[in-house]
């Protein structure tokens, strides 16, 4: 029986956690299987929750987010018969499978779309917690935007430096308003629950917004340009399925554009906003990235970004 530990922010954050939850639910629907699920309430409970899952016999135990890395490092050796899956960070233990995403690639496409949509020549980014992972989003976004319009200005704000930054919609809204006052007319939120405030502020002020992780297009159909979905749902689904079949491989796996691990969400909610120009530009860039013709820089590799923000 697989287990899933929903991270801080809750399974209905409309974003990262929700995506994982959806994947687990899809697995339940499709296979009729059962899984154990619990929700973290605080940072310091990671250990108890992981242990509880393992003690209870859940296998594999899927944990979401980089914040689990150091705890998992400690817990995994205590339960050699249990497999663990961690998303967004790499843990080198024999019984751990690490799944990472090529967020920079998806964000590049989002940046292109933003640049095309922008009339003011300024677009912006609201991140959650200021960590390399989020800078990776931002950097990819900026590269994409500059690829369309070299002179475009990209404003970047991080909500905070602690996990609380994932869950502060009020501040998200304030940051967005400030970016709007600086001229931004497309905002990309990669901020977990904080993003809800960003998208809301964008809708209130009538500018375009780009969601993240889950498909958030439905939230404000009039203003949601697209969402940079990260298929955490697929990752969870696959992990569950592989475990059931006994084929779960530990080690690192990276999900990118090619494997459809990241993508831009196109659906009925944003079809009126997405122009033909955007569609073609994106499709083209996507192919080029897959083909290796466009090299999108990954912030985490150098801890720096080649373009100005």
């Amino acid at each position, binding site marked *: 029986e697989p287990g899933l530990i929903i991270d801080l922010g809750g399974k209905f954050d409309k974003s990262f956690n929700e995506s994982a939850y959806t994947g687990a639910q899809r697995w339940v629907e499709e296979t009729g299987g059962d899984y154990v699920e619990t929700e973290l309430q605080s940072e310091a409970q990671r250990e108890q929750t992981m242990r509880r899952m393992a003690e209870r016999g859940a296998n594999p135990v899927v944990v979401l987010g980089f914040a689990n*890395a150091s705890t998992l490092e400690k817990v995994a050796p205590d339960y050699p018969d249990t497999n663990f899956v961690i998303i967004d960070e790499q843990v080198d233990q024999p019984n751990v499978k690490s799944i990472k995403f090529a967020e920079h690639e998806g964000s590049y496409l989002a940046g292109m779309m933003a640049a095309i949509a922008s009339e003011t020549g300024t677009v912006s980014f609201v991140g959650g917690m200021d960590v390399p992972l989020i800078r990776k989003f931002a950097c990819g976004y900026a590269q994409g935007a500059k690829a369309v319009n070299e002179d475009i200005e990209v404003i970047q704000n991080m909500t905070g430096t602690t*996990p609380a930054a994932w869950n502060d919609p009020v501040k998200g809204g304030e940051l967005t308003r400030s970016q709007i006052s600086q001229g931004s007319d497309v905002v990309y939120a990669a901020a977990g629950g904080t993003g809800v405030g960003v998208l809301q502020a964008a809708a209130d002020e009538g500018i375009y917004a780009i969601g993240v992780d889950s498909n958030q297009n439905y939230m404000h159909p009039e203003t949601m340009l697209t969402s940079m979905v990260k298929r955490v749902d697929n990752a969870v689904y696959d992990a569950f399925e592989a475990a059931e079949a006994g084929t779960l491989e530990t080690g690192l796996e990276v999900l990118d554009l090619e494997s459809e691990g990241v993508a831009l969400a196109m659906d009925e909610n944003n079809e009126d906003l997405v122009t033909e120009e955007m569609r073609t530009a994106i499709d083209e860039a996507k192919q080029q990235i897959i083909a290796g013709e466009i090299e999108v820089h990954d912030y985490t590799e150098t801890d720096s970004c080649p373009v100005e923000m």
Partner: protein
Amino acid sequence: MTKMPRWADIALIPLINLALALLVAGIVLLFIGQNPVEALQIMVRGAVGSTYGWGYTLFYATNFIFTGLAVAVAFHAKLFNIGGEGQAQLGSLGVALVCLAVPWPHWLLALPAAIVGGAVFGAAWAFIPAYLQAKRGSHIVITTIMFNFIASSLLVYLLVSTLKAPGMAPESARFPEGAWLPSARELFASIGIEFSRAPLNVSFLVALLACWLVWLLLWRTRLGYEIRALGHSEPAARYAGISPPRIVIIAMLISGALAGLMAVNAVMGEQERLLQDNVLGAGFVGIAVALMGRSHPVGVLLAAILFGALYQGGAELEFETSVPRQMIIVIQALVILFTGALDNMVREPVTGLFLRYGKRKPAPGTPAE
């Protein structure tokens, strides 16, 4: 109005208060469509039905003993220390610095050093509010609340800057192995008993020792006498040559040190690294524990175990049902409300009953004149 036997004061009334709190909590559970009896069963089983349960129950209890004693010592000096949370945060910092600074060869060496580190940092964080209360009359309740916020800002700042370990999460590096405390599992294994993997560790013994020392301090030493005297009457203390500012500061230093010691259990015993919040509200639980335990170390010990069970049981409840862990916070709130704020609601009628039915036998101390 004290014509009530002592046992009623220290046992009966707290128990009635607790029962009321649980009753209301049960109603809340019913209201959200859960079966309170079932919930209680899950909680009890989860908390004390296995060595795993006990391991967590007593682990939490260890935290609460320290913070409960911290609040209790301050209560004896009539100080309401709401700053346990911040003091424990700083205690965490102290413990972490000690553990990280030296490549400890053995935990027996690291433990005393960490105790000192946690206590000193916790005490230092209590010192400023204490000093301001003693010398400048600033209300300690407000200043300690403020210091809780300042402490968490400080820790955030340190964990994203100087103390941050490589990686994305704001946390310190893991302590060297020599600073890891033996867990109950390891200790029991050495005498051949199987115990689950749970974070219960030798700090629990430190906590028991702290209970005894606090008892000794309060009721057997001159300092304790002075603390209690000040708590009962400040003019009287001054009359007796007890310096109120001095005692306020000392009592708060002890209180802060006890709160800081919590980190030995939480940071050194479990996390083995500094996180942004190691305290998890234990500073506040200490208030409930001290109130329920009537500020007596034995009472604090029992109340801490009760709350430990509540926390562990609550975690299990969340695991097994859809009741969120916040249920424990509700129970905690109700316990504080009934034992602390609504005490007279129970006390007055109970006293009335004793007065009415206890009249026949004259209580000792009725006037001889």
